[in-house]
């Protein structure tokens, strides 16, 4: 694969970024940049929209049209942008707190509408920015600052939730397997219709240290060991699949897209 000139896509004056050592978000950012480059999208025609949290800061570092919006609402802002100018490529970068907890309603409805945007959800299983509170993807039993006796809640399998809601493309990858991650992102970007990619990204600072994964190496090893392909996961029982990260394409279809439907409606009304 041809080497990508990252500086072309970065606001180098805004670097160094604020993510902690060992955080996976920088790796994810580079994967998104490579995928954008390989998809042939230009800076001018591409809008990145983020919400609040560690994932939200990504829009400050990439040199595109960028929106750093309110907590949980990035998809709703992106919906307005895409409907106002369907020619723009719109990418939402969100996190497990931002995108599943406070913003979960917008995620399921954007998928249902099959609006042609891509949502990249950086899942680090924790609220990192605010200091390690449990999130909707914190595993049961894991320690968090708001689960001092271990988390008693069940986590979301958010990729499966989104696939059940609609959309044309759903995938899951990890920042350990960056080659696969970039491939999945490129497919998501080029897919016409709603596409969603869940990216498992380690947070050594707020999650790992409290959960026997004391540094980034331990967390990367954990990602590697728990990952399993969609194909291989089919042979596992539900219990066996419980702690695994099922990676790859979970949904790929061609349902009619929202802005196309709306354009048809306008043409029909104006023609009559």
């Amino acid at each position, binding site marked *: 694969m041809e080497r990508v000139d990252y500086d072309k896509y970065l606001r180098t004056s805004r670097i160094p970024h604020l993510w902690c050592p060992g955080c996976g978000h920088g790796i994810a950012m580079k994967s998104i940049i490579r995928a954008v480059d390989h998809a042939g999208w230009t800076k001018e025609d591409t809008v990145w*929209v983020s919400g609040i949290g560690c994932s939200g800061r990504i829009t400050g570092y990439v040199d595109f*049209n960028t929106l*750093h919006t309110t907590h949980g*609402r990035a998809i*709703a802002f992106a919906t307005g942008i895409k409907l*106002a100018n369907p020619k723009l490529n719109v990418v939402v970068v969100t996190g497990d707190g931002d995108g599943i907890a406070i913003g979960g*309603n917008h995620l399921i409805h954007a998928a249902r509408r099959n609006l042609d945007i891509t949502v990249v959800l950086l899942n680090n299983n924790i609220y990192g920015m605010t200091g390690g509170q449990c999130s909707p993807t914190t595993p049961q039993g894991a320690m968090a600052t708001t689960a001092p006796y271990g988390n008693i809640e069940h986590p979301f399998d958010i990729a499966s939730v989104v696939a059940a809601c609609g959309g044309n493309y759903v995938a899951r990858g990890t920042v350990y397997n960056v080659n696969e991650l970039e491939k999945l992102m490129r497919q998501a970007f080029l897919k016409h219709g709603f596409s969603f990619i869940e990216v498992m990204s380690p947070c050594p600072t707020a999650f790992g240290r409290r959960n026997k994964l004391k540094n980034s190496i331990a967390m990367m090893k954990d990602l590697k060991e728990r990952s399993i392909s969609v194909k291989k996961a089919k042979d596992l029982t539900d219990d066996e699949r419980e702690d695994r990260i099922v990676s790859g394409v979970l949904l790929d279809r061609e349902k009619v897209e929202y802005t196309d439907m*709306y354009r048809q409606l306008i043409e029909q009304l104006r023609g009559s």
Partner: protein
Amino acid sequence: MGTEQKLVPRLLTGNEAVALAAIEAGARFFAGYPITPSSEIAETLSRELPKVGGVFIQMEDEIAAMSAIIGASLAGVRTLTATSGPGFSLKQEAIGYACETEVPCVVVNVMRGGPSTGLPTLPAQGDVMQAKWGTHGDHPAIVLCPERIDDAWRLTLRAFNIADKFRTPVILLLDEIVGHLTEKLELPLKQQPKLFDLPAAPSKEGYLPYRFGGDFPPPLIPVGQGVPYHVTGLLHDETGFPTNDPDLAERNARWLVDKVEKHKDELADFETDGVEDCDTLVFAYGGCARSARGAVKMAREKGLKVGLFKPITLWPFPEKELQEAAKTAKRVVVAEMNLGQMAHEVEWALGRRIPIVLHSKLGGEPILPSEILATIEGRD
């Protein structure tokens, strides 16, 4: 102005007038969520917007609707949403985002009884202060309040113009009375809206999307037009990037309010009737102004020197204009469907020089002209 021709004259409700005037103003994007008593605005626009190539979308909640119109506005389209009390509360965080990111948009709030679910189908004016202070932090507020259908039409046109000129959200504050009453609208309007001249698109060379100072903010270059810049709800510098520099942060925060305050006089809008020699000045706005007119007429027929002051721009509050109208007044009767939200403002504006008598009603029934007359006469 092709639409105007087709509309002359016709019967419209306040909600329909707002919806159709929005299209006349060039609005091409509406995102909303069903809520009484504002839903007819969404319904009308769902029918009319696609006919003119615009987009209507019913979002999953009030917050999403507010967020979507900000996104669409950044992409270069005139946008609006419509709601009522509970929904207006939900939108407040995003309204603050639009203030901080200087994104023009129009937010219609058709007031109903509150707090909470309150009186969903009945009128009130309890959101006057929410319209000014609803979101957190210091921020600008421009709030326009119609009394009649022609007002609703004219103020809708003005709201979009002001939003673009000041790059800030403009609140159109109706109450259920004005939203649901039906009146004849005659076009062209007898009284044209006061509009600001909008500048041509700025040069893309060295574009500073968030210049502080100057008379007005620089016009917005929509996203996707070749000038990639950053938009954030964090306090930021003139390029749009977040800053922790205390001086820059303070300049950013002050600019948002200053840009509106320094044009207070041009934003002021009001109507008066018989204030030249009045002993009693009646202060009323929105649906209550209709009853106040009746009360003033009845009082004058009885030989009482009574005048009316109706603010149309509620915020910034037209204090100089009120002071002028109250010059001869020995007392002011404020008639409003809340517990005196504006009465306090009137008292402050007049420096507690003369007594302020509050006539308020909360139960969902309009204030009657005879009731205001009783207060004028000191019979209540």
